[in-house]
């Protein structure tokens, strides 16, 4: 509900504390304030005034300069030192001869001055002015509270959506057939435009994909979640094999291109879609605009898989190719989103492919540690700042016969 400056705020009259050691002056000021519709509280010295201001949450303090104990300056300074969430407007009463004291008083935190003797017209003008300012502040505070509440609600909704998104992902560690999968998934801001999955799609075939919707945030996450729901093992089975039962991941990608392309939109995504033949280790894949995955042997030698391909849903004329490679026992395939290589340091330098491969080479003998090591390296590279883009690291480790899963 938006608040405007003209919205009235229903608040009781502001509380005013009158501090003066002279009982007559106090009574005079209180009488004037009562006529203006305020409810004044009297204090006979600075310390009593400070207590009253604190206890009552008073918004206006009318104080004499000369008082025993805490004088006007000290009282103003003490009020200012209280870190309350509301402002106390301080008006100091001085005699004509004390005009030199005013600069000091301003520094102590006094807002306005009145000369003795107090007259009704000038007190009225000053109190009304203070009242205007304070009500304006209260309006802003109320507006701030409404905004903070709305922000909290939105963030709670986003976190709930992010939890739902995370629940769609496969377990960070899982074994499918003779492969161990390890993964990291980090949204740049609560929700992610990335999505991935892996599953046994047919006897002897493991299917997997990683998707990165262009851009990031809520908008990108809506599409990534829609894709996550669509791309089930069953969908893979129906779309990623041809009539003879041979793997055809490009057919699946082409179907997605047709389904999600829109002439009037630039929303698109990149994808790596793979099918691994268990017996032979043959990897059938379609690379659709995604970074080329990296294969690592147990000795740490890396090689790039694929050299590119059209992204999905960007162009209706795009064609998609099936490619083949080999992932032998003991080899590991690392699929990732560009949030890894494009992550920038404080000086704006990209993490880059060389550093990315460096991390892989170091972790080659323990592929299960790759996602964690990569996140660590990127966090160091970013000096602890959150990533600018969503990150996915999906590691497919083809374990050797009778071999234990590396951790």
């Amino acid at each position, binding site marked *: 509900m938006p608040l405007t400056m003209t919205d009235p705020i229903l608040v009781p009259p502001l509380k005013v504390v009158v501090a003066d050691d002279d009982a007559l002056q106090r009574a005079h000021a209180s009488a004037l304030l009562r006529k203006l519709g305020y409810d004044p509280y009297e204090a006979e010295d600075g310390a009593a005034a400070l207590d009253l201001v604190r206890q009552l949450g008073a918004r206006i303090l009318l104080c004499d300069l000369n008082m025993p104990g805490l004088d006007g300056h000290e009282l103003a300074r003490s009020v200012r030192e209280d870190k309350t969430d509301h402002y106390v407007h301080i008006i100091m009463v001085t005699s004509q001869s004390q005009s030199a004291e005013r600069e000091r008083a301003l520094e102590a935190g006094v807002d306005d001055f009145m000369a003795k003797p107090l007259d009704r017209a000038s007190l009225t003008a000053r109190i009304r002015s203070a009242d205007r300012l304070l009500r304006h502040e209260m309006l802003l505070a109320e507006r701030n509270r409404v905004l903070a509440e709305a922000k909290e609600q939105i963030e709670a909704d986003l976190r709930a959506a992010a939890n739902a998104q995370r629940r769609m992902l496969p377990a960070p560690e899982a074994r499918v057939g003779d492969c161990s999968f390890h993964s990291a998934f980090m949204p740049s801001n609560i929700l992610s435009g990335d999505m991935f999955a892996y599953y046994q799609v047919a006897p002897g075939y493991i299917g997997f994909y990683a998707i990165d919707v262009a*851009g990031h945030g809520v908008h990108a996450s809506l599409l990534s979640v829609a894709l996550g729901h669509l791309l089930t093992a069953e969908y893979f089975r129906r779309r990623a094999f041809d009539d003879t039962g041979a793997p055809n991941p490009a057919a699946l990608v082409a179907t997605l291109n047709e389904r999600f392309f829109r002439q009037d939109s630039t929303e698109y995504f990149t994808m790596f879609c793979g099918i691994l033949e268990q017996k032979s280790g043959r990897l059938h894949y379609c690379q659709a605009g995604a970074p080329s995955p990296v294969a690592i042997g147990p000795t740490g030698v890396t090689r790039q898989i694929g050299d590119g391909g059209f992204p999905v849903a960007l162009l209706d004329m795009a064609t998609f190719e099936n490619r083949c490679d080999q992932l032998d026992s003991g080899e590991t395939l690392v699929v990732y989103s560009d949030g890894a290589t494009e992550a920038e340091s404080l000086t704006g330098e990209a993490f880059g492919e060389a550093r990315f491969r460096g991390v892989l080479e170091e972790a080659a003998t323990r592929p299960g540690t790759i996602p964690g090591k990569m996140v660590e390296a990127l966090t160091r590279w970013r000096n602890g700042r959150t990533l600018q883009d969503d990150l996915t690291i999906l590691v497919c480790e083809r374990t050797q016969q009778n071999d234990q899963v590396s951790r």
Partner: protein
Amino acid sequence: MIKFHGDAADGLGIVEPGTDRLTAANATSFKDDVLGLIEAGTSRLVIDLSKVDFVDSSGIGALVGLLKRIGHRGEIVVSGLSDNVSQMFRITRMDRVFSSYDTAEAALRALRENA
């Protein structure tokens, strides 16, 4: 933000994004600015990326969005691709979608000859 050199008479022009990074942060405003030029009558455009050293997926989306909008009524080519940007164009096959020239001048000449 964009810089434009050209005149409406022949509908030819060179656009510089006016930034060294075409990313999610500015891709939409870049696209909207260039769409303004297209609507004002520039139908054959060189997008000169010689001062751009990074284009992300949103930047690619903006370039293709322009291409979609101009359709068969005009042409968009690119020039001055750095190694980094070339690599992005290769991996996303944009090198098959956009004709690319070493310099904006060469691109402009080619557009004139094609006319």
